[in-house]
C-alpha cells in the first residue's frame, strides 16, 4: 500500500468504481447484546435482534437517543464490550468472515486495521503522555510492523491528509498543545492510518463548534472518497444524517425500528417514531411553527413494555401494538420497519395518514 494519500478529486464518489468485492462489506444478522447483572436477575436488552448491512464506500447513519443501544452496537461490532455484556445471538459477517467466530487474537488484527473507530471525546482517546507522532504511528507499527522512522513519515503524510498545518512540528507535540478541532482530526488520522475498510464514528463532532464541525464532516467525506471507506455514523443528530449519510437505521429501545435509504425515510417515514422525531426538530427556515413534541420518556430497557416499545408514546397506537411486538416488515424499496402499520400499507400511505393528522 502506498503511503501517499491521493487527492479526493481523482476519485469517484461513494463506492462506485472502487475495487470492491460484491455483496455487503458488513452484514449484521439478528444480533442481540444484553447486559446481565452480576446475579443474573436484571437483563438489559441493549441491542436486540438487530439486522443491518453496509456496502463498501457507503455511509450508514445509526440514529437513536441515549439508551437506544447505538453505542453498544458499535462496541459489539469491534467486540470491545464491558464484562457485563453478552452477545446473545446473531452473526456479523465482515468481508464474508463472521467476527463473532474469531478468537481474541484474530480480532486484534481486525481492530484498527480493517475496522477503526473514532470516539466522541478526542481528549479521552488520545494519551496525554505521548507525542502526536507516536500515537499516529502506533497502529502502523503494530499492524504492519513498520520501523519507527518509516511509520513517522507515514504519520506526517496522514497529518497532512487531515489538514493539520505544519505537520512536522505537530508530530513532536502533545495533545494538550492542540485545539479541540485539531485533536479530533488527529483521532481521524489515527483512524485511517492503516487504511481500514470500515470506520465507525461515534458522535465525532458533538464536542466541536459549528464551523469546525463543518470542516471535519467535509474532511471525513473526502477521506471516505479517497479511500473507498465505508462509514458508520452513530449520532443523535438527524442533521448529520441528512448531510452525510446514504443509509439510515433508527434505533429505539435496543431495536432498529426503521432502516433504509436516507432520502426515502426523510420523505416518507414508515415508523411513527421516525416521523415524530423528524417533526420535533426546529428548522432554521421556519421558526413560527410549534414543534411537535414526542410526549413521555424513552422506556427503561430493563423493564420494557410488552408489545412495541414505542407504543406508550405513539400517536398512532392501537390495541395490537400493546400486546404484540411487531416483526421487521419490508414495505418495499430496500426498507424495513418494525411497525404494524407498515405490514399492510406502503410507505406512501403512511405519509398521507400523517399529513392528515
Amino acid at each position: 500500500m502506498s503511503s501517499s494519500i491521493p487527492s479526493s478529486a481523482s476519485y469517484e464518489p461513494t463506492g462506485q468504481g472502487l475495487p470492491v468485492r460484491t455483496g455487503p462489506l458488513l452484514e449484521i444478522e439478528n444480533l442481540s447484546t444484553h447486559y446481565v447483572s452480576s446475579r443474573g436477575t436484571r437483563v438489559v436488552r441493549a441491542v436486540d435482534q438487530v439486522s443491518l448491512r453496509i456496502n463498501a464506500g457507503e455511509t450508514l447513519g445509526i440514529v437513536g437517543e441515549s439508551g437506544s443501544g447505538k453505542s453498544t452496537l458499535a462496541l459489539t461490532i469491534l467486540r470491545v464490550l464491558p464484562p457485563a455484556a453478552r452477545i446473545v445471538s446473531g452473526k456479523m459477517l465482515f468481508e464474508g468472515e463472521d467476527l463473532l467466530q474469531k478468537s481474541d487474537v484474530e480480532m486484534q488484527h481486525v481492530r484498527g486495521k480493517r475496522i477503526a473507530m473514532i470516539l466522541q471525546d478526542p481528549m479521552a482517546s488520545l494519551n496525554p503522555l505521548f507525542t502526536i507522532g507516536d500515537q499516529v504511528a502506533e497502529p502502523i507499527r503494530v499492524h504492519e510492523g513498520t520501523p519507527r522512522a518509516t511509520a513517522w513519515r507515514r504519520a506526517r503524510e496522514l497529518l497532512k491528509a487531515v489538514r493539520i498545518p505544519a505537520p512536522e512540528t505537530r508530530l513532536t507535540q502533545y495533545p494538550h498543545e492542540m485545539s479541540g478541532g485539531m485533536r479530533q482530526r488527529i483521532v481521524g488520522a489515527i483512524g485511517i492510518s492503516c487504511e481500514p475498510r470500515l470506520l465507525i464514528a461515534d458522535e465525532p463532532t458533538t464536542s466541536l463548534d459549528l464551523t469546525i464541525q463543518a470542516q471535519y464532516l467535509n474532511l471525513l467525506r473526502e477521506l471516505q472518497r479517497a479511500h473507498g471507506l465505508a462509514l458508520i455514523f452513530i449520532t443523535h443528530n438527524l442533521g448529520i444524517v441528512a448531510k452525510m449519510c446514504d443509509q439510515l437505521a433508527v434505533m429505539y429501545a435496543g431495536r432498529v425500528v426503521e432502516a433504509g435509504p436516507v432520502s426515502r425515510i426523510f420523505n416518507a417515514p414508515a415508523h411513527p417514531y421516525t416521523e415524530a422525531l423528524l417533526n420535533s426538530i426546529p428548522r432554521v427556515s421556519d421558526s413560527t411553527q410549534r414543534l411537535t413534541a414526542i410526549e413521555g420518556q424513552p422506556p427503561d430497557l430493563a423493564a420494557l413494555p410488552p408489545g412495541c416499545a414505542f407504543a406508550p408514546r405513539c400517536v398512532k397506537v392501537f390495541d395490537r401494538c400493546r400486546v404484540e411486538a411487531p416483526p421487521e416488515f419490508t414495505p418495499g424499496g430496500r426498507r424495513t420497519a418494525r411497525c404494524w402499520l407498515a405490514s399492510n400499507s406502503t410507505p406512501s400511505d403512511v405519509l398521507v395518514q400523517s399529513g392528515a393528522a
Partner: protein
Amino acid sequence: MAVLEAAALTKHFQARRGIFGGDRGVVRAVDGISFTIEPRRTLGVVGESGCGKTTTAKLVLGLEDPTGGTIRFEGRDLQGLDTAGRRHYRKSVQAVFQDPYASLNPRMRVHAIIAEPLVTNETLSAAEARSRVLHLLDLVGLPPRAADLFPHEFSGGQRQRIAIARALALSPKLIVLDEPVSALDVSIRAQILNLLRDLQAELGLSYVFIAHDLAAVAHMSHTIVVMYLGKIVESGDARTLTRSPKHPYTEALFSAALPSHPDERREEIILSGEVPSPLNPPSGCRFHPRCPHAMARCGEEEPMLADVEGRLVACHLYDTAERRAPIRIAAGVSPVS
C-alpha cells in the same frame, strides 16, 4: 420600556503569564457590546466557543461585574443600585443552565429545591410555600407528587422542568437560558422548547436564549445577536437575519448549520482555520484572517456596527462610501443571491 439594556458592555479578564506575574495579557471576553431586551421577547445569542456568550450571560445575571459599559434594568443603571435595588434585580433575573444533572442538589427533595428561592427572599408560611411549589410544578407540567421526590428519580427532561420551576419561583421578568436543551434527548427537546414558549406567552417573560443549535435559536428568538471574539458582528430581527445573513461570519455560520432534509442543498462556506485566542485577537476586524471576503483595510481598521437592510452589521463590505461599487466582485467573490 425595555426590560434590559446593555450599552458598550465590556468585560476584560487579567490573564497571568510568566512565573513572576509580569507580562500580563488581557482577555477581551466581551468587548463593547450593546443590546436591548424587550418585554415578552427573546434575544438569541449565537456564536462559537470563546465568543463571549457565557460571559455576557454572567454579566446579565450579575455574576460578574463589567469592566466597562452599563446595564440598565427597567431603566435603572445596575451600578447605581442600592442593596434593596440589587436584591430586586436578582429576583427579577433568573437562569436555567445546560445540565440539569449538575444544577439540582441531589440531596434535596424537589419541594425544597423549588421553595429555596422563595424561602430566602420572602417570608412565607410552610403551607403557603407548599401551595406555591405545587402551582409552579403544575406550570411546568409535573404532577404534585413530584414535590416529594429527589432529582435522581427524574429523567433529564423532567429535571430541566424542575430547574425551570425554580427559575420561575420569584416571578422573574427575565430568564437567561444557557443551552437549556443541549443536554437533553432529541425527543425531549421539543417538549422543553414548547414549554418555554408557552410560559413566555402565559407569564409575559423575556428570555436571553444562548445555544449552539442555530435552528433552536432561530425557533425561539425574536432578535438575534451574532458574536465573534467578544464583539457583536451582526444583530437584528431573527427572521431577517436567519433568512439572509449579511456578515460573512454569520453567512458561514448558517451555512455550516446542518440541513434538516437530505434534499436540502445549499452553498457551503467552509471557513479555514479556527477561532483565534481572545488573549491576542487579530487587528482590525477580528474575523478577517478567516474571512473569505477580506480586503486590505479589514486588517487595519475595525468595522463599526451600521445599518444594512434593516439590521446592524459590522463589516467593511457594507461601508456606505464603497457600496456603489460591486464590492463582492472586487473582493474576488461572485455575488450571492
